């Protein structure tokens, strides 16, 4: 034990000295401090860079390679099949109803996220900022979904609309709306509106926190001078608050666009992708393929939708930056 301790006591100095000797480095105090600083920066960047290369660069390159392969059960390995997977996927996209429905369901997330959730979150965040009466109730209603597990949340939501025991049935009945044939999650016409409704309810809280943070950073003098000029709440929100938090709104808008290609958990947990695939999304289909071991076709799907998605997302980002200015204060 004593020997081990001695060894470790001497090790770093010996290694440093050896290192300096091999590379013939300047051993002055200043040079050593500079080297230590560079080493510190390298050490801090090493893990995120490694993470980026393994989980982004490697995974994406591997996905592209997989999209040109097909698993052969006789050979026990992936075989190169050129563009055969692309041909199959494109043919399925053109001829299979379920895939067409999945694409439409995914695309509708764009307006739901960007034109319903973000405006509602902005208004809610503004009410919180203005400390309107009842704000604590709103805070609970909208923020609770952000801190509860999505599994528990979807289960509660599902039970709220249970065809036999759900309290919401009686409430909506008072407005003349009856339980649809097959149930709220069992009817192809109502299942996706229900999933979007859930997404709005569960999505407001997260955005609200970010927007509330952005609003509270606006200099108080700006708001106060506007109020001295007699500005109303609507004008304050639309002409002062929104322009000043535009960079945050842009970020949320871009993230809200990317989810078109990643949203699946809501459909899975609320409706199991049903009825008859009516609530599937593009990401749901990819997840389904991965779960059944069809990795190569899933990779092809991923590549095709990346090719479609990346320009759309860049375009949206560009447009948002053109619409509003990057305010600094």
């Amino acid at each position: 034990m004593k020997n081990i301790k001695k060894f470790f006591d001497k090790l770093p100095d010996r290694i440093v000295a050896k290192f300096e000797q091999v590379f013939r480095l300047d051993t002055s105090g200043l040079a050593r401090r500079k080297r230590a600083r560079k080493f510190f920066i390298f050490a801090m960047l090493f893990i995120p860079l490694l993470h980026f290369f393994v989980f982004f660069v490697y995974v994406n390159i591997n996905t592209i390679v997989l999209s040109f392969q097909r698993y052969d059960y006789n050979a026990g390995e992936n075989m190169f099949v050129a563009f055969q997977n692309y041909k199959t996927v494109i043919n399925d996209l053109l001829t299979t109803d379920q895939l067409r429905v999945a694409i439409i369901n995914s695309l509708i997330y764009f307006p739901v996220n960007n034109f319903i959730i973000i405006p509602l979150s902005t208004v809610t965040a503004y009410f919180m900022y203005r400390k309107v009466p009842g704000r604590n109730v709103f805070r609970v209603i909208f923020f609770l979904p952000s801190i509860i597990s999505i599994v528990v949340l979807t289960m509660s939501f599902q039970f709220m609309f249970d065809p036999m025991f759900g309290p919401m049935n009686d409430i909506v009945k008072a407005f003349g709306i009856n339980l649809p044939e097959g149930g709220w999650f069992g009817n192809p016409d109502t299942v996706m509106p229900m999933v979007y409704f859930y997404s709005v309810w569960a999505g407001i809280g997260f955005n609200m926190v970010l927007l509330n943070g952005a609003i509270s950073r606006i200099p108080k003098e700006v708001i106060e001078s506007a109020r001295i000029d007699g500005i109303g709440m609507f004008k304050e929100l639309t002409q002062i608050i929104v322009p000043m938090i535009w960079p945050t709104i842009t970020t949320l808008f871009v993230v809200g666009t990317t989810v078109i290609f990643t949203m699946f958990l809501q459909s899975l947990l609320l409706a199991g992708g049903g009825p008859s695939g009516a609530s599937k999304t593009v990401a749901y289909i990819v997840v389904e393929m991965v779960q059944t071991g069809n990795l190569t076709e899933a990779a092809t799907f991923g590549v095709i939708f990346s090719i479609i998605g990346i320009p759309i997302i860049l375009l949206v980002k560009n447009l948002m930056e053109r619409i509003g200015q990057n305010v600094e204060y």
Partner: protein
Amino acid sequence: MKKIMIVSLLMIVVMLSGCNGETDDGKVLQIDFAEAGYGRAWLENTADAFMEENPDVEVELNGNPNMTQNAGPRIESGRDLPDLFFLLDTNWQRWATRGYLEPLGDLYEREVEPDVTFLEKMNDGIQDFGLINDEYYSVPWNDGVTGLVYNHGMFEEYGWEVPETVDELEALTDQIKEEGSGIKPFTWPGQAASYWNFPVLGWWAQYEGLEGIETFMEFDSPEVYQQEGRLKALQVFETLIGDQSNSTDGVNGLVHTQAQMQFINGFAAMMPNGIWLETEMASAMPDDFDMRMMQLPVIEGAEEPMINNTMAGDFIIVPEGANEKELAKEFLLFMATDEALIQYTKDTGTPRPFNYDPTQIEGLSTFVDSALDIWKNSENLYFISKNPMYFANNVNFFPASGAPYGDIYLGDETAQSAFEKDYVYVQERWDQFQRDAGLTE
């Protein structure tokens, strides 16, 4: 700082030394299992009995409901592997053909009891379950009894007879609606509509016989989708469930727990389900609730009337990179002894697909007894295919939709249209499926 380094390195050394599957006193058998409807008591009891016979062995159990989904990346990376995986039905063949699984041929040849090998101890219909490319790589975990479960107490109260034929079942649905004061004949989980596979595939097998199903599972050509039994079975479903008044309201959107809650609370008289229902709903089951499994009512023109659709697919594997492969095989051999099999049935209320008589076990519930009687007295139906198109999930029972039950219930499809749609879907893609599965260039 240096002290911290020394302590960290020593901890790493200690942790690594603990990973070789051996303790100071003996061996450690690590078992990772899907902790699903059967709970974990059965495996704890089996492990205790095994350790009693092998005092130098310690069995460590790690259960998780998501084990089946988590197992794939672990098997493929070769890291963090247990000695045995107990997993729910999934495509294990892709791991076997890649060399990730330990071949189990020698286990199948070992004697479980004098002059009875492991293979011979297994039920006839399931002996090829773990076979791929002429080698065994997996062992079936559960056997099953599936079909229609009925509320026996309710049947007694209203004087309803358990139907023996499909015609009687159809007549019973009308009788329930007339006499049942609001009780519906069926509830079922629309979000897991494949629960209807339990009786529907059973009716199909009754009509075609076990040989007909074997022919279908070979997937030699798209013509197998023209089997008349497939249509007849869907037509029975259409008659029963196409009439929406036969099911509880909003049934197509229910998850399985919601449907099961409706059933055990007396809103419906019957539901498609399996032998695991009692264990799965144990905590919610009313004390006086009395349910039974019915022998599947016989379809008109049946070739093989006494069919039990086992839906067996859950399996056990030994990863190629396991530390204690030999010990894992010993454990599997131990699990196939009569004592272990009987204990398994006592703990789970379900049989395993081996030759033993679980109906002799005393103290089981009337529900389990009714299901085990069906298991013992029927031709047990196992869906086993050696065709890679089946592993690759290109072909299955209803490939166009996955399961057409919801569409038939809503009136968007008829039995005939769903039947034809599958045939056309497969016929159009047959060459592609064969190519994808490596059967053609």
